[in-house]
């Protein structure tokens, strides 16, 4: 055995925000943004159903759809996202349902969380660990992630609707959101 010193080939970042950021709190009167993409129709369906529930709770909902992320298209997307984030009080960001789209979902969620607004990313089960890993590497290990079952996009509309219905309360819980005060007022 010949012992000696070798140089470390790795490089890591040390900065991290372990906090999940502020709770969403009471939804009534809030402007809630939902990030969509071009791939997952199941996420469009769930977003549509959740938006109706959020509006029932007294919130208003706007959407932003992520498209191409390179070239002029990518620059336009980045500018659009930045602008959209100034118009909302909180963000629901999906869908982490593949490798690159989990990357971009988490990246956009971090961009949102870094503005200081309550933010939650939505992932499917098989990409849950990856979403947390990529969030940590992006400097926000505490990013909120709500998990939907996998496979999701392969399901029919009715099944997806049932999943969205079943997960709405859980998403609100993970988001630190409440509609209780409004319900109490009613």
């Amino acid at each position: 055995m010949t012992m000696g010193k070798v140089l470390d080939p790795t490089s890591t970042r040390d900065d991290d925000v372990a906090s999940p950021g502020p709770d969403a709190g009471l939804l009534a009167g809030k402007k809630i943004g939902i990030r969509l993409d071009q791939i997952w129709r199941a996420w469009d369906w769930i977003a549509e159903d959740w938006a109706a529930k959020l509006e029932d709770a007294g919130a208003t909902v706007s959407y932003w759809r992520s498209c191409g992320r390179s070239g002029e298209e990518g620059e336009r997307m980045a500018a659009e996202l930045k602008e959209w984030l100034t118009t909302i009080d909180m963000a629901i960001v999906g869908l982490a349902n593949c490798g690159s789209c989990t990357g971009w979902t988490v990246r956009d969620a971090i961009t949102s969380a870094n503005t200081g607004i309550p933010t939650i990313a939505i992932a499917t089960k098989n990409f849950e660990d990856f979403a947390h890993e990529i969030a940590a590497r992006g400097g926000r290990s505490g990013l909120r992630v709500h998990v939907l079952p996998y496979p999701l996009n392969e399901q029919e509309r009715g099944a997806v609707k049932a999943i969205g219905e079943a997960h709405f309360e859980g998403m609100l819980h993970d988001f630190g959101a409440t509609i209780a005060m409004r319900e109490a007022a009613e």
Partner: protein
Amino acid sequence: MSINLIKPSGSKIAPVPKPLVSRDCGPAGCEVDWLASRRHEADLDFEGFNAFAMEKGWGDGLPLVPPTESRVRMFLAENDRFPDEVIAHLPPSRAECTVEKIAINAVMAGAQPEALELLIAMVAAVADPDFELYGINTTTAPVYPAFVVNGSIRDQLDIPYSYGCFGGVATRANAIGRAFRLIMRNVAGQVTGVTSQTTFGSPGRLASIVAGEWEEKSPWAPLAERRAGISGNAVSCFGTMGTMNVLDTTSQAARDFLEQIGKSVPYIAANCYTPAMPFAEMMVAINPICAEIVGKEMPNIEDVQECLWRYASVPADLLQRQHREQLEAQGRVRDDGRIYATPEPKDFILFVAGGLGGLHATAFHSFGSCLTQTREVASPIPASQAQAAE
């Protein structure tokens, strides 16, 4: 219908030429220690070091050369770079990729010191936001960056551009691609099953593809000159799903060859028809025999691109309804009822390479909206020469 055209982002910063002068004092080192990496006590014997490296997560499974301080110093001493110079921040880890980290990984891979400037250019190229390395390093797809090298550096580094240029040639240049892959692992943080979600992976993720263009056999200007006006040493990187062989033992005329290639390239599950992104590029390597025939009839490469592009489409009704509807929503079905592989002919990126047996072309399908990047490979200026110039 509104086709989304490929336009590079406008935020690029033009590279500023600068003398490359080393602060390294050579293998013996100097009073100021410019190497910032953490030192690890390790067994330097073959079995011991490789077990250590694998345990640390540094390795790709093949034998590694221990990156001792003296080896890394030797590597740097034969170049003219500051070890602490930051070349890029690489996703998904967004960690700093310094010249020192490139050198350490190059030593581990077995690359020669003369390859440093090429490796730096490769890293700088993939770090361009238009290359979409974030998606490449995380996706479920098998994509990896492939590199085409122009200029005299091809021969200096024994980079293959003739027989077997995309794999199988016994050359130390293979270690350049492996060094790049180790940088993706150790600096960018691309680890299969952890950050990379690739479903199947690819042999190209072990040592990539680092091939040259056979410029001397090309009837057209070198790829880097056509793309970026660079007439000397340069590298173009392309995010590819892998190599696709196109066989033609029958054609005789230029347009026949191009029809065969053009019609072979598009298939409905190719990246160019994913609804995830609005556009894609396509790279094609034309063999020298075919290039000579095509070049005689089409001395302008734009005519070759146009001809290929016209053949490279599928009828929209070939796609299942759900798939077709997504592309229709993106405005990608043209008035002729077809969906083209790329938005425009210019998005077919062509170069000449391969053996003199001809008969085959190689197509490289792209990934997502990853856009090909071309960078100049810097020529080191010895410190004494730079100081004399001052």
